[in-house]
């Protein structure tokens, strides 16, 4: 090549080489910018991502609070049991391990299979595995003697939720069970880590499912602790990094009274029914019992499928909480409220008498409404009408009442709506209005319907809890307190405070006087329970008819079928003249109110007064 050509070639090469090396430089710059973006601009998010990679946080289960009665006695507690826990990563051969440990502890075939099934996965990730729950004291002793031979296993305390009165408090306490979604997401622990939670309960992560356990789950459950492990990319635990202990849940102080609850259960016996008692000073619920009952301990800690099925299919419906969900006609127990409505609206007074021939004829169509006593009570004023429970008096009064006003008045006593501040799944039962009937049954409200309401029959139904609330408003002379299971400073209020009921104090005194007469006077319908106690009690009994019949003879015929027999009801408060407790009792198919439900109410009142 000649010189010029070489110079040209060299220049050509130089410019092209420089061009390519500039491209290389630009690429370097691009890489550097990207690294800058990763390491400087987005540093915090990548730092977090790296931490999330290596830090494996697991929650530590807290102990639930205990539940105590009004005297500080424990109703539900945490019972320690002992479980045998193994460290699978220290066990080379699980089959041989089981063979070695079998003479020490009893293992069912099922437990053995369960263990072997879970073994491999747990060994891989260096986590613990329970071999046997609830060791007996002999098993514990045997293991402790030989524990030097089992470096890969240890005994640890695990709790069970337990009540010493499992059947007495079943409905009101409710049960706990393994939670479906009991993640505390405020914990900053990924959802998938919760399966590895460090457990304190033998049943795993538990939560309240019904009753107080459910309503106050937040209070009771406490705060989860946290342990952070360093893990590698295969999820194997490398070392613990951080530990924050769990905080035990709050102990819950209730208004319930163990002794009174026991006496309610004992006096109801194996009859179906419910008892509710309220402390008139605080509105606290002292007794909330429904029969028949079941064991919450079994429901919380494992019940056989057969037993569960038999409870579910039991025609007596043991799971049904009659106290707060049972709907019963209030029957004659409504009469004081009807009377007060009459007084408030100047429809009646304490003096004027009405003739009671034993029945009431509806002027519109001549339909006859009968009283419970053949021939009637003749001349009755309001007090006597309450004492002898004259149906005719209240038929007549109700006939003259405006149903819209009456319905509103009854609702101020809590009928037709939930009354309890913190009850689980309370039923508001039903208070009818003319509008409701017209829009739901397509028939207008008849005066005959109002007449039925006058004696607590017809469309009106109430729960035993509502009846207890109603009678405590009367006992408290119109002051309305929200019934609460848990003492007020810890309580949850699911409802708003209702208004008090206005009536002159003279009228209140006369009403208390009349209701005391129901039990304490010679004419009272519930005088049969007068001698069961040494203090005075006011109250009103009722017999709720399940079938509307025209005559006594007709009732005697249907009486053969137990399920069609009248319900026996009483609402009562005492001791008079300065009442402290109100109580309602409903006994299904128990017939005569005073004689059947009355003694139960007296037993509960006695127990509450003895236990102050």
């Amino acid at each position, binding site marked *: 090549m000649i010189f010029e*050509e070489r110079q040209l070639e060299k220049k050509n090469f130089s410019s092209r080489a420089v061009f390519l090396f500039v491209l290389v430089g630009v690429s370097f710059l691009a890489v550097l910018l990207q690294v800058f973006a990763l390491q400087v601009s987005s540093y915090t998010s990548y730092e977090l991502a790296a931490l999330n990679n290596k830090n494996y946080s697991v929650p530590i289960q807290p102990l639930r609070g205990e539940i105590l009665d009004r005297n500080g006695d424990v109703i539900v507690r945490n019972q320690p049991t002992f479980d045998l826990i193994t460290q699978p990563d220290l066990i080379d051969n699980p089959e041989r391990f089981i063979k070695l440990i079998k003479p020490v502890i009893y293992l069912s075939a099922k437990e053995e299979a369960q263990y072997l099934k879970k073994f491999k996965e747990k060994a891989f990730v260096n986590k613990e595995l329970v071999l046997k729950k609830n060791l007996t004291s002999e098993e514990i002793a045997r293991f402790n003697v030989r524990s030097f031979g089992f470096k890969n296993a240890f005994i640890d305390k695990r709790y069970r939720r337990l009540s010493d009165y499992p059947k007495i408090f079943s409905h009101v306490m409710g049960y706990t069970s393994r939670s479906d979604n009991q993640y505390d997401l405020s914990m900053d622990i990924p959802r998938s880590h919760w399966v590895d939670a460090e457990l304190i309960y033998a049943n795993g992560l538990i939560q309240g499912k019904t009753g107080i356990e459910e309503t106050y789950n937040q209070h009771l459950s406490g705060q989860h602790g946290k342990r952070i492990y360093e893990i590698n990319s295969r999820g194997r635990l490398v070392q613990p990094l951080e530990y924050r202990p769990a905080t035990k849940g709050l102990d819950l102080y209730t208004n319930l009274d163990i002794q009174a609850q026991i006496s309610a259960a004992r006096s109801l016996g194996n009859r179906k029914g419910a008892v509710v008692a309220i402390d008139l000073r605080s509105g606290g619920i002292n007794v909330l019992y429904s029969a028949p009952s079941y064991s919450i301990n079994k429901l919380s800690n494992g019940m056989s499928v057969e037993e569960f099925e038999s409870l579910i299919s039991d025609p007596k419906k043991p799971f049904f909480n009659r106290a707060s969900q049972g709907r019963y006609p209030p029957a004659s127990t409504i009469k004081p409220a009807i009377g007060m409505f009459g007084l408030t609206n100047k429809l009646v007074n304490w003096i004027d008498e009405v003739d009671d021939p034993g029945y009431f004829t509806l002027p519109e169509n001549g339909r006859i409404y009968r009283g419970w006593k053949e021939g009637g009570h003749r001349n009755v004023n309001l007090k006597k009408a309450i004492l002898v429970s004259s149906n005719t008096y209240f038929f007549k009064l109700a006939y003259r009442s405006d149903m819209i006003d009456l319905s509103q008045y009854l609702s101020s006593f809590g009928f037709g709506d939930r009354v309890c501040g913190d009850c689980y799944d309370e039923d508001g039962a039903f208070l009818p209005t003319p509008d409701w009937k017209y829009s739901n049954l397509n028939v207008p409200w008849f005066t005959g319907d109002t007449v039925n309401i006058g004696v607590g029959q017809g469309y009106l139904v109430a729960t035993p809890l509502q009846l207890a609330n109603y009678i405590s408003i009367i006992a408290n002379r119109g002051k309305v307190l929200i019934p609460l299971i848990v003492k007020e400073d810890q309580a949850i209020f699911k409802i708003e405070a209702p208004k008090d009921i206005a009536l002159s104090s003279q009228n209140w005194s006369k009403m208390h006087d009349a209701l005391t007469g129901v039990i304490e006077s010679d004419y009272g319908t519930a005088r049969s329970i007068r001698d069961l106690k040494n203090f005075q009690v006011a109250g009103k009994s009722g017999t709720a008819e399940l079938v509307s019949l025209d005559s006594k003879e007709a009732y005697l015929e249907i009486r053969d079928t137990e399920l069609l027999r009248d319900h026996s009801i009483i609402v009562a408060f005492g001791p008079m003249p300065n009442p402290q407790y109100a109580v309602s009792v409903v006994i299904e198919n128990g017939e005569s109110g005073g004689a059947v439900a009355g003694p139960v109410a007296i037993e509960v009142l006695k127990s509450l007064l003895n236990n102050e």
Partner: protein
Amino acid sequence: MNKFTKIYFDPYLFFSILILSTFGLFFLYSASNGETSIVFKQSIYLGLGFAIMLLTSQADPDLFRRTSLLFIILSVLLLGVTFLFGPEINGAQRWVRIGPFSFQSSELLKLALPIFLANFLFNKKLPIQSKEIFISLVIIFAAFLLVARQPDLGTGLIVALSGIFVLFLSGLSWSFIGGAVAILIISSPFVWNTLLQPFQQQRIATLFNPGADPFGAGWNITQSKIAIGSGGIFGKGFGEGSQTQLNFLPETKTDFIFSVIGEEFGFLGVLLLLSIYFFILMRCLYLALSARDRFCRLVIGGISLTFAANLIINLCMVVGLLPVVGMPLPFISKGGSSLISLFFAFGIIISMGTHKKLLPQ
């Protein structure tokens, strides 16, 4: 100066490579969770590599020119041997065993092809003719196919690039380049649909959206970005990178060793590392510009740009700018054959850059 007493040596390249590969041993120590045997083995390869580099640089450029045909035939034969006898690893045949040594046979072709093309083109008149372009392209394409069908698409592309660099530097006309680029763009959908394997398509798709499947296809790139990003400005410290030490980062000893550096030494470490690489490349450019003849210029340019492409592809891959392709970080990643061939390559560069003609032709 007596020809036989002169030692052909470039202190700039020598010391920067020495610094780089010494750093590399530390990085490798951390990346292999403190396994000293790997570091020991690597340092033996390094020693061997330096010896090869020094030895190679003593040879006169004419030797490479005269043996370039032999060299490329040898390389192709080695590929053939790999195809016939090489063990299959992860569905690919890339290695050949010679006695106790395993060698990645495509490494040689990366050097043989540019030397061969430089020899073919260095005495051609400017601008080079279509016939010469055609012959060059056929050779390049054949070399590409030989490697790509192993299959090793990444190295195949590097081999092709090594030839294309020489062709470009030797004076390929701009209009031709423009036309080629246009054809490439137009045919890219065809390449995507028919030539690329599904896993290759996935790798490219993953690049643009690694979050779509962070535990599957996007795992490597996601973890690499987390490692680098969490290093911050100063890094987590030697042996302290959680992504590296707890094995969240894949392939720490080979392809993703840059992420280890990023995690443990931070942005400053990366800056220092890139500066050394950049210095090496600038020195190569200088040697190319001041080389004694066209053949040397073309070889230095071709080989050093191939080295740069190799480096940039690795860097872009681990920082998430390019799809994942198997490509080691030069002088740092674990691997004997790539180290040896690198030192051999720089031996050739030094030889071409330091041998001067005593008399102008």
